[in-house]
């Protein structure tokens, strides 16, 4: 059985026919071809699929597409304004907060949500927040630095 879902993704109204079991991440990647949101595990541990739903970060592998009917979704593709990066994206670039890039979209989306909740997080708070985002390349050192810098930039420098 298929269901029609409609939502706003990165400011644009979209809709599509999905199966009941279709995950939000599958809808984003396979129906909308927004492949910046990644799938790194099958147990909702890695966080590579983090997006914002109504402004809050969620793992899009833990939400069915039908549950997302009517919501506003922001993915990694929706952050930059053309070539102008979001301050958190820019901070990751400035601080070498990414290597292979696979965990990066989820890291950035999660980090923005952290700063929305806690504008001036400590290193410890950042490390605790990232419990649900795995990275195998960076050892997290530069991700933490990036988020500290990104938080500062989001506060207006």
């Amino acid at each position: 059985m298929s269901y029609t879902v409609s939502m706003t993704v990165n400011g644009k109204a979209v809709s599509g026919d999905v199966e009941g079991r279709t995950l939000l991440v599958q809808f984003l990647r396979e129906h909308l071809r927004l492949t910046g949101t990644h799938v790194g595990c099958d147990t909702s541990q890695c966080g590579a699929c983090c997006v914002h739903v109504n402004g809050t970060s969620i793992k899009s592998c833990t939400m069915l597409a039908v549950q997302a009917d009517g919501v506003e979704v922001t993915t990694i593709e929706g952050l930059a304004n053309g070539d102008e990066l979001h301050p958190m994206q820019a901070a990751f670039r400035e601080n070498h907060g990414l290597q292979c890039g696979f965990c990066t979209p989820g890291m950035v989306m999660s980090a923005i949500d952290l700063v929305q909740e806690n504008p001036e997080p400590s290193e410890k708070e950042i490390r605790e927040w990232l419990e649900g985002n795995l990275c195998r390349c960076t050892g997290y050192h530069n991700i933490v630095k990036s988020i500290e810098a990104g938080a500062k930039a989001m506060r207006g420098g």
Partner: protein
Amino acid sequence: MTATGIGAAVKRVEDFRFLTGQGNYTDDIDRPNQTYAWILRSPHAHAKITSLDIGAAESAPGVVAVFTGKDMEAEGVGSLPCGWQVNNKDDSPMAEPAHPPLVIDRVRHVGDQVAVVIAETRDEARQAAEMIVVDYELLPVVMDMAAAIEGGPQVHDDVANNLCYDWHIGDKDATDAAFADAAHVASIDIVNNRLIPNAMEPRAAIGDYDTATGDHTLYTTSQNPHVIRLLMGAFVLNIPEHKLRVVAPDVGGGFGSKIYHYAEEAIVTWAAGKIRRPIKWTAERSESFMSDCHGRDHVTKAELAMDADGKFLALRVGTLANMGAYLSTFAPCVPTYLYATLLAGVYTTPQVYCEVKAVFTNTVPVDAYRGAGRPEASFLLERIVDRAARETGLSQVEIRQRNFIPADAFPYQTPVALQYDSGDYGSTLDQAVTTAEIDGFEARKAEAAKRGKLRGIGYSTYIEACGIAPSAVVGSLGARAGLFESAEVRVHPTGSVTVFTGSHSHGQGHETTFSQLISDTLGIPMESVEIVHGDTGKVAFGMGTYGSRSLAVGGEAIMRATNRIIDKATKIAAHIMEAPEADIEFKDGKFTVAGTDKEMAFGEIALAAYVPHNFPHETLEPGLDETAFYDPANFTYPGGCHICEVEVDPETGVVEVVSFSAVDDVGRVVNPMIVEGQVHGGVAQGIGQALLEGCRYDENGQLVTGSYMDYTLPRAGDLPSFNVGTHATLCAHNSLGVKGCGEVGAIGSPPAVINAVVDALWDLGVKDMSMPATPEKVWQAIQNAQ
């Protein structure tokens, strides 16, 4: 140094696409009219297949085809090849059992490939796979290496006692004689724990067959697409190179686990030709755990003989190395030529003898994992040196200083084949001691004690061999390929440059580092340089990225091709400016005629090369496009010192890494930001091995650590920030002076961490600690000691 030249911390050019979700990983690619594959995997560690019924699956909704091992065998599909032959002590070749991409009639590890279902959607393929009826006759399982070589159940009927090879290196008699004369002998038993690499991008492969031309294309998550083309084309599927293109686009981490030519690559390529449609396969993480190659898994006994002054006389080592159920691409060389040859370490130990038995068990194949053999060597050495210091009463610094190869002793020939070209181990240790503020340790320990914590400090002074590798050397040691690298530097008419490299970036930032080489050498902006890699259809040849070889081998190939560009451009400049070639100078992107004011910019020469209106064509060809194949003269030898401080909570056994300092000699540093990032990542994986990670099977061969809920990948909260620095001595045999930085962190750090844990617990009577030092294990060790 220019802003984008060698030595500058240039921000990475690849980051924009990754940060904006525009990376192009294999699973992001869809081909027109694509189908999806699902691999049916064995739930048993060892079983005979008595019947395999695919009838219901074939007629399930959406199914296009179902294939088994017998279908592939009937079409002459070959065995997955091993890239390295190690010989036994008696010079006979290792045992090399067949490894069909889909099993024929027997499964040998949980996750072994039984059949492939191809359907219109992934869900349909998966559902149909569940309709395949397999009757398994369970066979006895062999998991323990010691049992395996002593008459345990046979993994392969044609491999007696499951022994892949029985190999050795060094002078046994001289080593034994040195032990007979020793004033003191330290000994230690070591288990180097099996790890699951866990690149964040799961493996994926897309087979595509062009019915018009008969060309095959494979998109795959590989560190070495040309090697895959060679292995799969020549040995498995019999497709010649000109009809087979392998593309490894953006790849989300490798760490060695994406070297191996995996079964799924051959399956989708072959099956796409059969069904004449593209086929995509993407691993779920659960499949990754049970089908990506694993790493490490050694059991070792080591002894160190010393004289009365603590000078090392000899090292004697015996190791069992787990190969898993089949040989992966590089497995045989990891516990031999990448391990035992490093056992002199940074020390003047005159005699080293090591024997290694490689063993088949009912486990996932083992292959290279970050460091590959060298972490096992450094862990053994730095643990036994730590033990020797404790037993002789020398300090950890003193015992090392007494035994270091002196800075003026290079080139230094070790007793185990390698010749080190450069290093200064005393200085890296001194710098690390300063960085780690050793002077304050006792005060920090006393302060921790007030909080009920046991604080310990651990040292590791390691060496590794990378920049893999001289073809002549590895060829004589059993490598079935050369390990050179190729580069093409193509200068376009307007002066911009495209570099085609056989190295492959899966996080290392080659697009930035290699552009810096070109910008520095040709004096052009980085924006005028494009780096192309990962596509056999574009890059002439390549051996790929592993063994920290990209800059030392691939970068050097780029330098050679670039120097040929300058030579050719000099000829063009001499012709146009009507001067002898010997008078042409090239500096800062300009060709000048010595002693005159004549000059031409690099871009002007480039244009002239493609507008050769008055070239003397007999002596000067148009165009500006040069290729180089570089084969290094030796390995490179990064080394360094890692110092770790931990605090142990004796109530819970929890170990916290409270500081970690690393000073690494990676040779000349092209981009310090990237080098530091590589060290951070390596150290994190090393701390993971030491404290958190360990693959576990139960006695029936079931993988117990099969997900992120069971296998402890380091999380941000498990790690501290790191103090990293470099102390460079230049590589003596490449023009850049570079050594390699990708693996040093994972090689140097595990013994530093465990030595720190042992230091914290030594006074309680805990003499040893195996990896991973989990809270349970540490707590139990404390209880047992009391």
